């Protein structure tokens, strides 16, 4: 269970090469899917284009449920990239994991809190940026002391809590899924009896993990838009 990470230090920064690999793989897969789906764009969509347009509309629906489209339209790309990236990332660790020299190479990048917290921090930072950009600094600052100035410490805590929960929720779900899959796979390898006993729970858990992965991608995007709306909207 306790595999090591292939660490590498460059310019004083420590890289987990497994993360680097999986982030790259995820990005490439997302990009290839998106480009293949939009290679032959037509007014009458077919196949993959239909699927991607459905995703577009889905994300649009998420944004629209939080803010009006005039403000939220600029977050469409962010939402699309987030939902596709996180979904693909969640799926990658499901079929197998690769361990070389007791070092874990192939896994979901979202099973690492560094990755999920980076995404969460980026989202929260963006929400602050757009809060200032769209409403002005005064309105933005007023958000911290409304409805009562006494809430200011809570508001500050809320920002960090948001970041942490957003990142750790995703990490926890995916990491737990992978741990259980690894346990099941471990018992699969123990012998005939173990294989027979573990095969059905493994399949069931993989199916459930697909569901969890999709739900988590949706929740991450949804909460991103909720935080955005909270900072961007005028009536707060």
């Amino acid at each position, binding site marked *: 269970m306790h595999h090591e990470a292939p660490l590498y230090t460059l310019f004083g920064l*420590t890289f987990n090469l497994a*993360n680097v690999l999986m*982030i790259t793989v995820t990005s490439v897969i997302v990009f290839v899917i998106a480009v293949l*789906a939009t290679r032959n764009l*037509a007014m009458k969509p077919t196949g993959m284009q239909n699927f991607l347009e459905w995703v577009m509309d889905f994300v649009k629906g998420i944004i629209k449920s939080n803010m009006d489209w005039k403000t939220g339209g600029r977050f469409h790309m962010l939402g699309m990239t987030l939902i596709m990236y996180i979904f693909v990332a969640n799926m990658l660790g499901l079929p197998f994991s690769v361990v070389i020299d007791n070092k874990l190479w192939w896994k979901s990048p979202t099973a690492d809190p*560094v*990755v999920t917290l980076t995404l969460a921090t980026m989202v929260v930072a963006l929400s602050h940026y757009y809060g200032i950009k769209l409403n002005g600094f005064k309105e933005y600052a007023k958000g911290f002391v409304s409805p009562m100035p006494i809430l200011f410490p809570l508001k500050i805590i809320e920002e960090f809590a948001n970041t942490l929960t957003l990142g750790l929720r995703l990490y926890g779900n995916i990491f737990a899924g992978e741990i259980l899959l690894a346990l099941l796979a471990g018992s699969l390898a123990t012998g005939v009896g173990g294989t027979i006993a573990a095969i059905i729970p493994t399949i069931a858990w993989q199916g459930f993990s697909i569901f969890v992965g999709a739900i988590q991608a949706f929740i991450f995007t949804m909460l991103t838009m909720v935080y955005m709306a909270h900072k961007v909207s005028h009536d707060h």
Partner: protein
Amino acid sequence: MFVLGAGGHGFNGGDIAFQLVMFLLLMFLLRKYAFGPLMGVMKQREEHIANEIEQAEKHHQEAKKLAEEQRELMKKSRQEAQALIEEARKLGEEQKEQIIQAARQEAERLKEAAKKEIAQEKEQAMVALRQQVASLSVLIASKVIEKELSEQDQAKLISEYIQEVGESR
């Protein structure tokens, strides 16, 4: 090592930087090569559909107007036809009346002419009859006279005539 993934070997800043850069790069590339064009097509389709709907509405309106016009025209032409038939009927009636009148007059005239002719014929026949009767009576008279008048009587008669002639002179 899974305690927040920090691993205990220094700051994991490389992952953070790499994840950030990759995510932003991915977003940029997706916008440029996939979602941007897709969005364009979707917007284009939206406009196309809106256009089509507008067009359809316009056509519908036009068709409605045309149908109304057609109905109006139909009504008008029906009325016109009705009027024409009415007029023709009236004309026919008039002509019938005229023809009957003319026929009646003609008949009257013919009757009159026939009557006149009959009268004329009758007159002529009377004249002819009268002449016939006269000549016949003369003939009969002469026959009778021939048979009954004696020499004496003849002489007497002649002398009477002569006397008469002489007196009238």
